[in-house]
């Protein structure tokens, strides 16, 4: 009797445990299969976009072979009119700037991938500084879909988080930030001209927040250089030198109402300028350029030029590049 009871209990426990294990396995199986299947579909869709930002990025990294390439964040994308640069320098030009407040690590990743394929003649880098800022590393998520395709940028992607390698075991995760853009139904895609996207609106000066006249020294002091960003800047310079690419690092205009409000340099800016000067890189600083001071009609907002402003600025950039080219001994 006792033996039967024991066997009965043992069987019940065993059955219950087996059913639990089956349930766990089934759950994991469903998640993994869906992840892999959906990830595969999303990957196909991502790399077969034929317009929009994803297409531009895919094109820049895998196909573009323009003589002049422009890199940077939204300020690069909206400030450098590829048509003007192309006509003025008589070279093919493509604007590879990307919206989204990217740090210098993103253009470094782009340049790293492209330089494996070919060497452009000129690279214009819209300079975004070498200090860390909120979300700087998170925004490297734009590179996640390329993690498998381009092993050379994997260390840069892993800077996002120490667990990035584990997260990337999922096939869906790389498209996490892009899923809405992938399934875009092809609406409202802004028109671009070789990557350049003009901004149409005009800055409403009344909407600007009043800013303190003097930027406080202590606040500037907090902007220290980020090691990874410093490395990115140094590596871009090194890479361009080794591939014989003319590198122009440029800071484009911001909107200012008065010209004499030059703030003291932050430690990060000092470090970056030191690297630039030490390596004798062409550096053009238009951030306080008097031509743009007070001209709200040339700006879309405080940090972005509109189409009209971009036209003026692009002409100034090409003039400067030509001047440098004339000065440079052959």
């Amino acid at each position: 009797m006792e033996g039967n009871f024991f066997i009965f209990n043992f069987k019940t426990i065993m059955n219950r445990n087996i059913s639990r294990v089956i349930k766990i396995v089934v759950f994991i199986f469903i998640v993994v299969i869906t992840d892999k299947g959906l990830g595969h579909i999303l990957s196909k869709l991502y790399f077969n976009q034929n317009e929009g930002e994803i297409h531009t990025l895919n094109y820049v990294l895998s196909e573009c072979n323009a003589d002049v390439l422009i890199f940077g964040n939204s300020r690069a994308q909206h400030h450098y009119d590829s048509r003007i640069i192309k006509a003025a320098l008589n070279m093919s030009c493509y604007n590879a700037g990307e919206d989204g407040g990217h740090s210098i690590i993103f253009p470094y990743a782009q340049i790293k991938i492209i330089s494996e394929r070919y060497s452009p003649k000129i690279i214009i880098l819209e300079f975004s500084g070498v200090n860390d800022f909120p979300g700087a590393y998170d925004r490297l998520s734009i590179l996640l879909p390329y993690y498998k395709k381009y092993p050379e940028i994997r260390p840069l992607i892993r800077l996002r988080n120490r667990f990035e390698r584990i997260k990337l075991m999922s096939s869906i995760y790389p498209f996490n930030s892009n899923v809405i853009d992938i399934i875009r139904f092809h609406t409202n895609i802004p028109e671009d001209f070789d990557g350049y996207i003009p901004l149409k609106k005009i800055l409403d000066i009344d909407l600007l927040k009043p800013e303190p006249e003097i930027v406080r020294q202590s606040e500037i002091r907090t902007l220290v250089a980020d090691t990874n960003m410093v490395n990115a800047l140094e590596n871009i310079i090194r890479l361009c030198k080794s591939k014989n690419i003319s590198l122009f690092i440029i800071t484009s205009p911001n909107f200012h109402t008065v010209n004499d409000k030059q703030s003291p340099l932050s430690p990060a800016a000092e470090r970056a300028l030191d690297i630039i000067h030490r390596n004798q890189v062409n550096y053009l600083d238009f951030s306080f350029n008097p031509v743009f001071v007070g001209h709200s009609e040339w700006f879309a907002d405080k940090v972005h030029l509109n189409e009209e402003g971009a036209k003026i600025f692009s002409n100034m950039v090409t003039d400067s590049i030509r001047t440098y080219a004339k000065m440079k001994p052959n």
Partner: protein
Amino acid sequence: MLFNSLSYFFFLPVVAVILYLIPGRYQWFWLLACSTFFYYTLLPVFLILFFTLILSNYYLGIVIESSESKRNSIFIFGVCINIIVLAFFKYYGFFQSLFTDIKKLSVNDHLLKIFLPVGLSFFIFTILSYLIEVKRGTIKAERHIGIFASSLLFFPKIMQGPIEKSGNIFPQFREVKSFNYDMIVEGLKLMIWGYFKKLVIADRLAIYVNAVYDNYEHHSGISLLVATIFYSFQIYADFSGYTDIALGSAKILGFNLTNNFNRPYFSTSIKEFWNRWHITLSLWLRDYLFLPLAVTFAWKMKEIKYFGLASEKWIFMFATIITFVVCGIWHGEGLNFLIWGLLFGIYMTIANWTLGFNKKLRKRIGISKQSAFYKVYGILITFMLVTFAWIFFRARNITDAFLIIKKIYLFSGTLYIGEMRRLLICIAEIIFLIIIEMRSEYFGHLTFPFKKSIWFQEQIVYAFLVILILLLGVFDGGQFLYFQF
């Protein structure tokens, strides 16, 4: 280490496995060590403060219980000390801003930087609850300092509560925790739903809300209205998501914590809203502030009419307004939080004062309190009033709040869309949340919204949620909103 960080996914299973392997009498020690480590990863320096508070309140509890003659004065001393500590860290920023304005110093000056230790408000409220209950004699002072410390520092609840009553949590730390499959599965389900609410709903809504509220000067009234409605859902998804993760984590370790949310946006009145929103805080305020205040006022006031209103109406008003003002101040030091609390006090008072009038009105137009029409009407009105109050909660300061209200009132301009697809996703997420909550509210699936009779269906639903988290979750959304409190 945050709940929404990957480190937590490694941390929790390790804690659980070792907890179930070690003998019962050492389990409290393991949990204390893990909770200390958990907090150490957040703000290590404040562990000194937490342990000092634990030690002092441990002895205070014992002294309050054992002392006959000085019980009251020791109790008052204990309460004051805790409140002073909380007030110092909570309102330092407020005085700091005044100081920096006067001295023209930067807020970045190192000496002026003092943060509010994460979870201190919840921690102090739990301790105050303990001291009050000991003083009232409803619980015995805890003599085991290890259990006292580990229950106060218990990592699933240290950051944002729930504010557990000692009578609920201490006995659970005395129990021997052994592996319980069903409880672990329940915990995991709760966690998945919590992560979904936090990462997919709250953090995605936050993108729109932050874009509009952080630059409200540039946005139209209609955009601000949409952002305010989104914020109502964002804060709910954020905080209730956190609570689900906390409750789920605790369940995995064999603990049952008190649920903080009971679908508050289905409340038909403000009173009901506070019975469903941040339940443990509401109970705390009711038991330790509102009721004592009401009793005190009842002793002081004669049972006659004042200005044509019965004394109990006045008592209710005073006690309610004071309680909600304290609730507002507890949330933050700005005037906007005070007004937020005051608004709820006013809502509750008006509702109380017009009880008779409402009853007569319902009778006259022939609408029952149980009718669907009345319920829908009540839900919408309550949601609107709560959403209006959230403006003060979300705005940076009182000036901004009033400017935002003015803009919403003028209702001019066009809707900020950003990207249409993202806006549509936000709306779809809100609809999804409402449907799920509605199902739980009206079809009886109270704790687990995806309860299915066929296990395979349930597996598919939870797997689908995991996939949606990976696909739509905002993984760099940062911390939970209630961290700041």
